[in-house]
């Protein structure tokens, strides 16, 4: 386990370095002079020179990179070009909304997908399985942002059950917070549930065909005991992996969900930054998103490496 852990962490280091290079390069990939692009064509030479100085664009590239990495390691992601507020502060304010939305979505997906996935695997080929398969196909095909708009139409415009926008922090009022998060969670959660359901069904169905399950049946162990104590434990390994991988996709999807439901989260910060050409905020947001994904992936790998000893032994190739 020790060498697996060390190797996995060691493989993360070059990724962190490459991510930092990519994020740093963003501002240099802008066609033309970044300062002129940020300020617009009407900017005075004085303003352009001042911005170049603020962004450190006059220094050699390697010095710029080292300065930037040094600042990032001290939690300094620079000042927002739109309002001169520290980017780290802006992200700190917005991230809890996105994390709450992500956790809510994930919980919703697990609550829906696990029981239905198990039922679907047990009743393979039967009516319940076919219904679940059709529902999964629908869930995978309906884009969350369209679903979000239609949920707004149904529950807000027609039924007046939920507010159309606005966010109440969890610490302020739990009831109102849940009310403001219900539709966004539903909009993104259905797709995530469909992915997890499909994975749970496939994984459990494969395990249920395995020799050890047949042996357990032959020994006369009851059906539900086989599933809960023997099959599910083995079947959940790929499901945990899938859940970890879904986090990256989920974070991307939340950008649009936050925009639809006007939630003041991390995604809407990024979108607003793009429209106001606030490249320091774009850099900071991209870096934080990538770090979150790297951390979740690392935690997932370590988690299933811990659960399944075979993975510790076999995961040699990148």
């Amino acid at each position: 386990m020790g060498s697996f852990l060390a190797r996995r962490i060691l493989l993360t280091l070059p990724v962190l370095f490459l991510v930092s290079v990519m994020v740093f390069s963003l501002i240099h990939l802008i066609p033309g002079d970044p300062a002129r692009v940020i300020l617009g064509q009407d900017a005075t030479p004085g303003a352009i020179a001042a911005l170049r100085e603020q962004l450190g664009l006059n220094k050699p590239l390697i010095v710029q990179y080292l300065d930037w990495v040094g600042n990032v390691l001290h939690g300094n992601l620079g000042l927002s070009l739109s309002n001169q507020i520290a980017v780290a502060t802006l992200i700190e304010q917005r991230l809890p909304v996105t994390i709450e939305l992500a956790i809510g979505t994930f919980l919703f997906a697990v609550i829906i997908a696990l029981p239905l996935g198990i039922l679907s695997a047990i009743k393979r080929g039967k009516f319940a399985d076919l219904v679940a398969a059709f529902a999964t196909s629908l869930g995978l095909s309906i884009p969350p942002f369209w679903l979000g708009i239609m949920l707004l139409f149904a529950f807000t415009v027609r039924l007046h059950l939920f507010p159309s926008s606005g966010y109440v922090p969890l610490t302020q009022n739990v009831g109102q917070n849940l009310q403001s998060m219900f539709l966004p969670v539903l909009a993104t959660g259905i797709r995530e549930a469909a992915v997890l359901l499909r994975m749970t069904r496939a994984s459990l169905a494969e395990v249920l065909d395995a020799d050890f399950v047949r042996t357990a049946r032959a020994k006369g162990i009851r059906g539900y005991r086989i599933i809960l104590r023997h099959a599910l434990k083995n079947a959940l390994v790929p499901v945990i992996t899938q859940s970890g991988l879904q986090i990256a996709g989920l974070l991307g999807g939340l950008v649009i969900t936050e925009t639809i439901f006007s939630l003041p989260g991390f995604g809407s910060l990024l979108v607003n930054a793009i429209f106001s050409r606030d490249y320091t905020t774009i850099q900071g947001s991209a870096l934080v998103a990538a770090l979150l994904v790297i951390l979740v992936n690392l935690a997932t790998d370590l988690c299933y490496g811990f659960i399944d000893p075979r993975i510790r032994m076999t995961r040699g190739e990148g």
Partner: protein
Amino acid sequence: MVNITTESVTPAETTAPLKKVRKNRTLGRMVRNPSFMIGALIVLLMVVAGVFAPVLAPYPPNQINFMALLQPPSSAHWFGTDELGRDLFSRVLYGAQTSLEVSAASVGIGLFFGILIGLLTGYIGGAFDEWFVMRVMDSIQSFPFLILALVIGAVLGSGLGNAMIAIGFGFIPGFVRIVRAQVFVQRRSEYVQSAVTIGAGTTRILFVHILPNILTPIIVQATLGLASGVVAEAGLSYLGLGVQPPAASWGSMLHTAQGYITTSPWLAIFPGLTLAIAVLGFNYLGDGLADLWQPKKN
């Protein structure tokens, strides 16, 4: 004594009926596979709608009509009209064109670089593969797909071409991983070893010998990638970073529709429904192809 008459049979004559039988068997399996058939039908309809949009559309997609603003669906306007009186059905048809163009081009970009890098890194292997190429792929995949596309869009600017690049870039690591994994398996096989023995060059081994043998999973992944491309294009256009007005895109139509959802819900219903059906089609087609070609995996 039994007289055995032997006729000279050429190899082409013996393999031709065999090929025909195999072809018929494959066609039969395709027809019996509901996922494949439904998916193929939807994708075919989408391609026809996109390609023949100028012929099929009853009105020009950008024709403004101030006498018919926000009209509900009727015989004159099957899907109703938008806030500028433009025919929504015509715009949905042209939206299919945009969607297909962007998703096909972005998958093409992903395929081109993914195959090239995957073949090379899978064949070379070693530290170059594990410590350099795969770590670069890991770092690209560390960015959530849509955030990556948004950030690239922010650097390059909005527009059809830039949306293709932004989405296509995100596809590269997925294809690299699939191609690389297949090359790992194939490079140890006898036919590759034989090619090496007779002195075939690396380029020949990769592109003439290995590539044709690993096309199946690549095609399956490309088909599923088209579904992601359609959604990503719509997502970028919804946020205003994809196709720019007045060009028709399902995503930008949904963005406009949200502002009129209380009074004119059809503006959101039709483009969104078409988008969902298109994604369903590509997903079914991809699943169907996977069932046909990789039955063990499914």
